[in-house]
């Protein structure tokens, strides 16, 4: 393979990785406050359906992305109500969000099936696409890829370089320590869940508005669950989210590339790659992630069991 082919593979991987990357950032922000939300999949689905519907009706993909993000946030508020307000087990509550998002998006998305939108303008002919050497590569990426990269930067700076980021991280490490600082852990956790909902709704909208440009029931196909697993691989660190999301993106891109090269493997078997590869990576890094100090301490009980 020459350089151009590698760049081609990388640009597809980045496109594929973007929804997962956004969902990972959202779940990371939630888990950093000491709450696990397994409802990411459901939030992505309502984000994808709402984002697609608004883009279809208004013609504006940016408006669609915004509404998709808000829809994800609205659904995540149910998680906040259930586990913070009523004291439901976080794993069970997250699964309830998964089921509810799946149902609501299928119910309200039914008239959208089969419709098409044009999505964002291509960047290939702007100033970015005319840069020497890297121009054609950068031009192949879409607006949501750049948005996700900017958000990685913002999340990293927020968590590690700002006062509020420190408070945010402290919430996940020890609610008691936070109380001694005179802050309210519950308020911060609500903020953590809602911010996560906003990002994961955006992730779903990125998938339907920018990538597939169609709406299909259950179109996220496990990406939300993968994102929850990959947050562990990335050690709750936004800076690591990009390379880890690229593992997913590359395995998806590789499956596509092998298919288009006419490899003698069933597309359905190749379709297991985007699940198998992240799963294996999760297995390899799981032990270390639990032993190390990177895991927010308030999460330990949630992951160990239901107690």
């Amino acid at each position, binding site marked *: 393979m020459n350089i151009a082919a590698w760049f081609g593979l990388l640009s597809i991987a980045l496109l594929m990785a973007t929804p997962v990357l956004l969902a990972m950032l959202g779940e990371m922000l939630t888990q950093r406050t000491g709450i696990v939300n397994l409802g990411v999949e459901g939030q992505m689905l309502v984000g994808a359906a709402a984002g697609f519907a608004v883009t279809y009706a208004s013609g504006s993909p940016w408006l669609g992305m915004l509404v998709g993000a808000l829809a994800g946030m609205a659904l995540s508020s149910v998680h906040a109500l259930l586990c913070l307000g009523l004291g439901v087990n976080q794993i069970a509550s997250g699964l309830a969000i998964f089921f509810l998002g799946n149902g609501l998006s299928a119910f309200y998305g039914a008239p959208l099936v089969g419709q098409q939108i044009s999505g964002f303008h291509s960047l290939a002919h702007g100033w970015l696409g005319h840069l020497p050497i890297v121009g054609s590569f950068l031009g192949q990426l879409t607006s949501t890829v750049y948005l996700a990269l900017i958000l990685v930067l913002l999340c990293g700076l927020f968590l590690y370089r700002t006062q509020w980021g420190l408070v945010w991280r402290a919430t996940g490490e020890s609610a008691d320590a936070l109380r001694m600082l005179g802050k309210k852990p519950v308020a911060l956790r609500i903020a953590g869940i809602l911010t996560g909902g906003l990002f994961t709704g955006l992730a779903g909208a990125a998938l339907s508005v920018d990538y597939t440009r169609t709406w299909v029931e259950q179109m996220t196909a496990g990406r939300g669950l993968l994102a929850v697993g990959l947050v562990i691989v990335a050690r709750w660190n936004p800076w690591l989210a990009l390379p880890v999301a690229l593992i997913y993106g590359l395995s998806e891109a590789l499956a596509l590339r092998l298919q288009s090269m006419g490899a003698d493997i069933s597309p*359905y078997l190749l379709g297991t790659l985007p699940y198998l590869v992240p799963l294996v990576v999760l297995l390899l890094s799981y032990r270390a992630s639990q032993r190390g100090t990177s895991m927010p301490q308030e999460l330990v009980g949630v992951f160990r069991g239901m107690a």
Partner: protein
Amino acid sequence: MKSFLALPWVDRAFVPVAGTLVFLLLAAVFFQLNGYAPLQIFSQMVQGAFGNAFSTNTTLSKTIPILFCAMATALPARMGLVSVGAEGQLYFGALTGTAVVLAITAAPFWELFPAALLLALLGGALWGAIPGVLRAALGVNETIVTILMNYIAIKIVEYAVYGPWKDAANLGWPATIAFPDAAKFPSLHLGALSSNWALVLAVLLAIVLHVLVEKSRWGTGLSLLRSNPRVARMAGLSYTRHAIAVMALAGSLAGLAGWVQAANVQTHLQPDISSGYGYIGFLVAWLAGQNFLRIIPLALIMGGLLSSGDALQLFAQLPFSNTLVMQALLFISVLGVGAWRAKHRSVA
């Protein structure tokens, strides 16, 4: 008021009754907001589920896989494992059972059926054991692994029926050859009602499992592993061995659901042998509080909800996906009321 709530039977009935009321309220709001008259929809639901022999038979046929999948969820939950993997175990069990049918298609019932059933059990067990091993050996969260493995199992079944196992006579339709009657659970008739022996098997297994987890040493061991793993270890119970065995056993139960769906309901292996029964079984198990006897009526109600979903789509133009919303609302109602009750009881 407080003393009334403290009566034992009121205490036990509080969560189911209040949970159902909250659910009916949420469901009524949902239908009202979408322009359907709630009371009319509710009565049509009951009609569509149990209104006549045909609808009751449809309900029963949907109850069977839900029952198996609910048991496949409740058993691991008894030792504190949150498995959402029944859907994938159902598919993988159907896949391995189908291998037998394709190998000895012409064999008589007493050879073909037990062999296919055994392979379906083993396939489901394998798919369940993998997350069990990963949890026990590496400590990997079983909820995430089981859900991811669902997607993988469905892809493998798609590979088989679009590829090597596809019957050329089906033209474009991705499915294997039609299964011979010798591969199916024998049918069962009672007046106008008709079903098959898988229903009897499912109910019997639920009763047996109920007795085992409530009354046997093994069941107590599971509870101990859930509530206090350290004490369990000191009592000589191996977490590793139990986690793997329980997950494998649970997987084989879901494998049974896979076999009844492939052999009796669809009569082919094809990509849509389950309508999300694995996930519905999960909801039923949690609504039942992992109690195997309570799973039986709840599975019947859920089966009724699905079969009325078909009828409502036909007569009220209500999209079938409303059943997904109903399931989620029911789950949320019971979870919420249960947690609220637990909190207020501990205060009182």
